[in-house]
C-alpha cells in the first residue's frame, strides 16, 4: 500500500509527519485527512474564538496532493464587552 504523510497545523503549531501512514489510495488519504481534523479540533477546543485546523497530505514523492481545512469562528452576541 502507498504511504501518505499528514502534516497538521492547528493554528498554533505545525507538525510535520515524518513517518506517514499506509493507506489504500489517494481517496483513502483524502478521507483520512478530513477525518483527522475534527479529532484534532476536539482535543484543542474550546481554546480561542478563531481557529483554523489544516491537514496537508503529501505522497511518497513529497508532492502535496490534498489540503483540508476546518475553521472555528465563535463570537458573543449582544454582550457589549469583550469575552475576556
Amino acid at each position, binding site marked *: 500500500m502507498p504511504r501518505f504523510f*499528514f502534516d497538521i497545523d492547528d493554528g498554533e503549531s505545525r*507538525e510535520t509527519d515524518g513517518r506517514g*501512514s499506509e493507506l489504500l489510495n489517494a481517496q483513502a488519504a483524502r478521507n483520512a*485527512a478530513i477525518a483527522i481534523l475534527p*479529532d484534532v479540533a476536539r482535543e484543542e477546543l474550546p481554546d480561542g474564538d478563531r481557529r483554523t485546523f489544516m491537514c496537508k497530505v503529501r505522497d511518497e514523492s513529497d508532492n502535496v496532493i490534498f489540503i483540508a481545512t476546518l475553521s472555528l469562528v465563535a463570537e458573543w452576541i449582544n454582550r457589549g464587552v469583550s469575552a475576556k
Partner: protein
Amino acid sequence: MIEFLIRKLERFAPLTAEERESLKLLPSKVRNFERGQTIAQQGARPDESAILLEGCAFRYKLLKEGARQIVSVQIPGDFVDLHCFVLRPLDHAVAAASPARVGRVPHEAIRQLLAKHPRLSESLMWDIAVDGAISREWLANQGRRSAYEQLAHLFCELYFRMDWAGLVQEQGFELPLTQIELGDACGLSSVHVNRSLQALRQDGLITFENHRLTVPNIEALVSQADFDPAYLHLLG
C-alpha cells in the same frame, strides 16, 4: 509457558505444589498460530478455553462495514476466553497479533481441576474479575482521554503487565500491534495514532521501532497517562 499463568494467579493467592502441578497439566494440546490468524470465532460455542503460552493476541468485535474494535490485549499467561466456560456463545473473536503458541484447555479438565482443588475456583474467578476491571478501565480511557493520553495509558498497562510477567527487558518489550491495530484498540484512526505516537516520541516518553516498545522513564509515562496500576490488581 503455563508458568506465566501460575505466576499471575499467585498474585492473588499462593498456590500449593499440588495445585501448581495440576495447573501445569491443564493444556491438553498446544497449537501454533500465525500473526493475524483467528484463535476463537465470535458466536462459537467451544467446549474448551484457550490460554496464550507465547506471543500476543487480542479480543475484538467486528462491526458493520468491516469496522473492528479491539477490546483487550492478551499476553503470555492470559486465558483468551476463560469466560466461555460459562458464557456461550462467545461474544467476541480472538486473533493472534504475533506468532503465538496457544494451549487448549478442555472445560472438562477445568471441572476436574476445580473438583480436585476447590480453592482454585477463587483464583480463576479472580482472573475473570481482573479481566472485567481492565475492560472498565478501557471504557473510561476511551470515553474521556485524549488520543495521546489513551495511547500512553495503553502502553503503561502493557508495560506493567509484561513487567509482572517478567517479560520487560532493558525497559522494553515486544509489542507487535500495528498502527491500525492500536487505532482499533483506542477507537482512533491510524493517522491520529501516528500523530500521537509522534508526539509521545518527541516528548521522549517512548521509542517504538521494529515491534518493540521501549519506555526510558516509566514514571514519566505514568504521569502523562494519569495511570494508576491498582485496577490491574497485580500488586499482591
